[in-house]
């Protein structure tokens, strides 16, 4: 049972077993415990942040005080409709709400350029997409990398993975 919770949360359980398991999640204490603990472990591994003990319990007792939901216009029974919304439309929906946002912590590419170096650069470089011949450059370059004397052929794995121009040449 607990191993199915483990697989469920990784998205690796088949639909039938998953539905049955979700059904029973409300009733089986052991399953609930596993759901709780495994998610806690996952969060602790990813960034080590943990809320104080009893957070869920406090929310649960507040929920007890809430009136029961009447959901006449709930989810459509046809789950496929979810994916009809295009990515562009989702972004538009987000901005319409006009909600508080913040400067996203996007990884600056490349990080090194903005930092102080031995001799400062004259200018910041323009960021461009990888050239179409990148894989050919990489293949030609790897043969000269001294890494080969430490790692053998392993560095040759480095290529751009979605390369469609191979077939157009």
């Amino acid at each position, binding site marked *: 049972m607990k191993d199915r919770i483990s697989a469920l*949360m990784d*998205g690796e359980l088949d639909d039938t077993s*998953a539905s049955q398991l*979700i059904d029973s999640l409300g009733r089986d204490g052991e399953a609930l415990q596993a759901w709780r603990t495994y998610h806690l472990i996952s969060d602790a591994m990813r960034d080590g942040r943990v809320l104080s003990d*009893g957070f869920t*319990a406090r929310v649960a007792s507040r*929920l007890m005080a809430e009136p029961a939901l009447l959901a006449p216009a709930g989810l459509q029974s046809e789950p496929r409709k979810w994916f009809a919304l295009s990515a562009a439309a989702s972004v538009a929906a987000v901005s319409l709400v006009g909600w508080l946002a913040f400067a996203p912590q996007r990884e600056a590419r490349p990080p090194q350029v903005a930092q102080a170096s031995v001799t400062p650069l004259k200018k910041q470089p323009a960021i461009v997409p990888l050239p179409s011949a990148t894989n050919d450059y990489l293949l030609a370059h790897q043969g000269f990398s001294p890494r080969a004397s430490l790692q053998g052929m392993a560095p040759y794995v480095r290529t751009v993975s979605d390369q469609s121009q191979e077939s157009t040449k």
Partner: protein
Amino acid sequence: MSDREIDRQLVARAQRGDKRAFELLVEKYQRKLARLLSRFIRDPAEVEDVTQEAFIKAYRALPAFRGDSAFYTWLYRIGINTAKNYLMAMGRRAPTSTEVEADEAEGFEEGEQLRDINTPESVLLSKEIAETVNSTIEQLPEELRTAIQMREIEGMSYEDIAKAMNCPIGTVRSRIFRAREAIAEQLRPLLGTRKDKRW
């Protein structure tokens, strides 16, 4: 069954009156939401209060949730609005705003951990639990450790882990489960003092 579909089913049950189904979602997303809100609110106790408030608001708004976006995306927006209102009520200025990437809200996480330089260390409220998890992992038999790290930190599917570890998918599933159970065993004394007997 995908993560999104799991959430959809739990939401559907909650909308039909199953409060426990909603609690399962709380269990799943509380830390992620708290981490988000801690970008605006520095005090850890306040972060918890606002996170709790956000979940209650979400619960009340559930009948209006039509499933056009993922549950977490929707929860995320409610969380941000709750934080904003809280800061205004406290007379504090909210941080400057720019458009948030939709895929941040969709829970897109790069395997490479981005340094979240705005989040204060004080949000680490229960260091002991985090440390226990990580030290247990270090002591796990290697194949269990590798499997769970590939799953949780690298975000790899069972199929990809099976390829990387050159073993059947069933073995990957078993290793990850055994790793989780080993860690859960170490956490038991830390979590066992919960007053909440419903769980």
